């Protein structure tokens, strides 16, 4: 669990998870290309290093396809953390709050 929190305690790595959430199964090259397109400067080396930390924490799962390595957001460890601190009966109310916050902020999701 320490590895998960350490991996999440970095804005660049959270950005990478957001990118995979938007489009799962990207290669290192695709991730770099799309980051550059939206003006986020992260060297290929840095992205590669961040991905390794995310994979070590099991937040990213990889699949080899031919010579390519595809990266997938793996939400299971985050789910386990939620299960640890969020009770069964709080869930509905929390979801209502999250929905309300989303509606009020009109998040662009």
């Amino acid at each position: 669990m320490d590895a998960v929190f350490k991996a999440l305690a970095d804005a660049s790595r959270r950005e990478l998870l957001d990118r995979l959430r938007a489009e799962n199964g990207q290669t290192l090259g695709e991730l770099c290309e799309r980051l550059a397109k939206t003006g986020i400067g992260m060297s290929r080396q840095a992205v590669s290093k961040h991905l390794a930390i995310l994979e070590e924490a099991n937040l990213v799962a990889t699949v080899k396809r031919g010579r390519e390595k595809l990266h997938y957001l793996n939400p299971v460890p985050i789910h386990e953390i939620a299960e640890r601190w969020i009770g069964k009966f709080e869930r509905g109310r929390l979801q209502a709050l999250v929905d309300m916050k989303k509606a009020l902020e009109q998040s662009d999701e």
Partner: protein
Amino acid sequence: MSKPTFVYVTYIAAPPEKVWQALTKADLSEQYWFGYRVEASGKPGDRMTAFNPAGVKAHDDPIIESDPPRRLVYGWKPLYKDLPDERMSRVTFELELFKDQTRLTVTHDDFDDGSIMFRMISKGWPAVLSSLKSFLETGKGLAPSWDDEAQKRAAAGA
């Protein structure tokens, strides 16, 4: 080979044989899969069946590959009456010994474009896998945490 849609990985402190049993035996699945009795212990060509907590059949899908305790592949096409007719998708379980744990990878792919099942799945597997891990490591599964829709469906008997 097309690109997998979802890939989930969890590490479970139990041998692959035990994880395999939990994935294929209804008496075990019932204890962590939120009351669902999922039987998938047959050979390729046999059926994977699942009954919801109300005893209504929710799955009757083909087992495509079975190599205990390493690899299991079955079709996925729930029998829910209110789901539009979607093509059968495919679930692959891969179990590997990793140090003294089992690394379980679940891949779900082969969805139709715009699939509704696709959206339900993205909430379902993390819940099932977290509960499976808890069940094998502590003897207790977790309470259902998937969306209300699925719970109401289960309560109403599919």
